[in-house]
């Protein structure tokens, strides 16, 4: 069995699967990270990912092309994200409860719209999803080529998003503003930064990223929309943000590690067979996330103003 696993870990198909599984986690974790860096916890992630998955798929099902579907998913995420932003930033409502509300709304609205457009379907209708796109030259490298460079386009988008978010956060004035309002909004305000605008912008952009993560599931990984499709992926992203210490590079690492574990768990199920109930394997990713949280929370460097609403002229 050890030899089986060792073989698996050097096989290109395993890493290709890992990267595929990781894609929604990479996008979701990045989105949540952007929100939290600006000081806003976004528990709406689960609902925003569901809405992204539904909206993107529905657009394509109604005749739009795949990239338009991705754009519509991002827009839907941004709209739901702006609701979270308005309630938590200018109004300063509890970010926990608002986030739960946004998740409930995103999920139920997705199901409602899906059922309204497709009232009587027994088997979910399908679309033609994104096909793997082999990058010329690079995909010919042995092992690494098929694993890294023969993915579907949205996986490349996710990897590019890591670089873009990292660059914006650490190398641009906008990124500095985002980090400042998440650490010390009063100081940011004194510098002439519009705290409300920056925070809202971060939440809206982050939510759009999450929604694209959801859309990956319906437009790339599968070709249909199912109820309970997100299945806790959003919550795991929130754990991954803590694991990543709010850094984009580490978020990528965390998402890939998590996905590798998930892929391994799938193969282990096949190797071990019915000796252990399959639910044990399905539990492992959730338990692993909790364990990662416990290990990382001790030295977690939370953005200092996370979950603290900012009102102009009020002292903290």
């Amino acid at each position, binding site marked *: 069995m050890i030899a089986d696993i060792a073989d698996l870990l050097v096989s290109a198909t395993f890493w290709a699967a890992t990267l595929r599984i990781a894609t929604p986690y990479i996008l979701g974790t990045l989105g949540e990270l952007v929100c939290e860096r600006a000081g806003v916890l976004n528990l709406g992630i689960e609902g925003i990912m569901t809405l992204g998955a539904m909206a993107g798929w529905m657009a394509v099902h109604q005749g739009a092309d795949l990239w338009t579907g991705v754009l519509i998913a991002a827009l839907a995420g941004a709209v739901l994200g702006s609701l979270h932003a308005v309630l938590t930033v200018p*109004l300063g409502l509890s970010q926990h409860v608002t986030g739960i509300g946004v998740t409930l*709304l995103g999920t139920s609205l997705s*199901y409602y719209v899906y059922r309204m457009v497709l009232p009587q379907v027994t088997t979910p209708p399908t679309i033609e999803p994104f096909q793997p796109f082999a990058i010329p030259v690079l995909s010919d490298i042995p092992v690494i080529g098929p694993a890294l460079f023969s993915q579907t386009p949205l996986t490349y988008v996710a990897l590019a998003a890591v670089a873009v978010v990292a660059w914006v956060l650490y190398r641009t004035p906008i990124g500095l503003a985002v980090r400042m309002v998440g650490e010390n909004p009063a100081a940011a305000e004194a510098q002439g930064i519009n705290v409300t605008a920056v925070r809202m912008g971060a939440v809206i952009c982050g939510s759009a990223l999450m929604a694209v993560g959801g859309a990956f599931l319906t437009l790339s990984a599968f070709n249909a929309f199912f109820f309970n499709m997100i299945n*806790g992926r959003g919550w795991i992203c929130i754990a991954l943000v803590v694991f990543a210490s709010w850094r984009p590079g580490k978020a990528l690492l965390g998402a890939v590690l998590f996905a590798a574990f998930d892929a391994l768990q799938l193969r282990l199920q096949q190797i071990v067979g019915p000796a252990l109930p399959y639910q044990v394997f399905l539990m492992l990713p959730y338990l692993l996330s909790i364990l990662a949280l416990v290990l990382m929370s*001790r030295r977690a460097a939370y953005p200092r103003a996370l979950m603290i609403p900012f009102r102009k002229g009020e002292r903290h």
Partner: protein
Amino acid sequence: MWFEPRPLPSAALRVLAPIAAVIAALALCAALIAWTGTSVAQAYVLLFQGSLGSRFALAETLTRATPLMLTGLAAAVAFRAKLWNIGAEGQLYAGALIAVMLGGGMVDLPVWALLPAALIGGALAGSALLIGPTVLKTGFGVDEVVTTLLLNFVTLLFVSMMLEGALKDPMGMGWPQSAPVLPEAELPRLIERSRLHAGLIIALLAAVALWIMNTRTTWGYEIKAVGANQAAAAFAGIPVNWVMLKVAILSGGLAGLAGASEIAGTRGYLTLDLSPGFGYSGIVVAMLAQLHPLGVVVASIFVAAIFVGADAMSRTVAVPNYIAEVLVAVSLLCVLVSAFLVRFRVRRTAARTS
């Protein structure tokens, strides 16, 4: 636009605000109903008739309200201490699992002890499931929102494993469901030919007990103090971690009791669709009630009426019954905004000095 705190919101305002919020939610969802081409008035009339319009409908609504009342209280007591227990769904299933094991006679108990054992055992199972995240929060600073949420998935998978393994009913035709509890472990019916059971009485008593605890006891005061300002509470000599643990036992216990009472009251056996999200809806119930235990009673009946009424409505007109979930979610958001407007006045210009 500026928000200026109201010095002392009037009692009328505080009672009227949630009602106004619910009306706003109904108005917002009217757009979704109109989109299907159905008459909004007809849809809402059907919803009302299907939930409160007849003796049968009312009994069904109260049956639905029973677990919501308990999970609503679970959220209300925890949120009051700012312990963000989002794991009521998992705690409910843990309670149901233990209840079905004890009520099914897995442990040799005298007949009279079966029902109390199932209910208390179920409550304790719920408590046990929340103690872990609470200790991780107070001891290690691990955010309880994520841990309780993730434990919901773990618990559901564990229940699924038990239903396909040790607890699988040999007479269940291969379905993943447990054997039913013994007749002595069932809660008595309150109304003949309806599903309404004595779990409602338990839930009502729990609400009154919590209200007395909140207003008349040291525990209630300590919980409020910890929720309002942890540092100040600690400075005043309140053992914050211990209070958190007590809250966790109470909150998890109430959610576990919801599961146990569903087993002993309605189904008798356990399946994976025992709860259509009672744990998550409990959060909405608690917020609609502004965390007030007696308000939870009213709010749970309201939420149950929407679910029962929407089911009835969707059988007549072409509105998917998911409208219930949308309505509940929109109500939650509207109530949050209305609570804000109770605390703050909206001003066009800044106040001169404050």
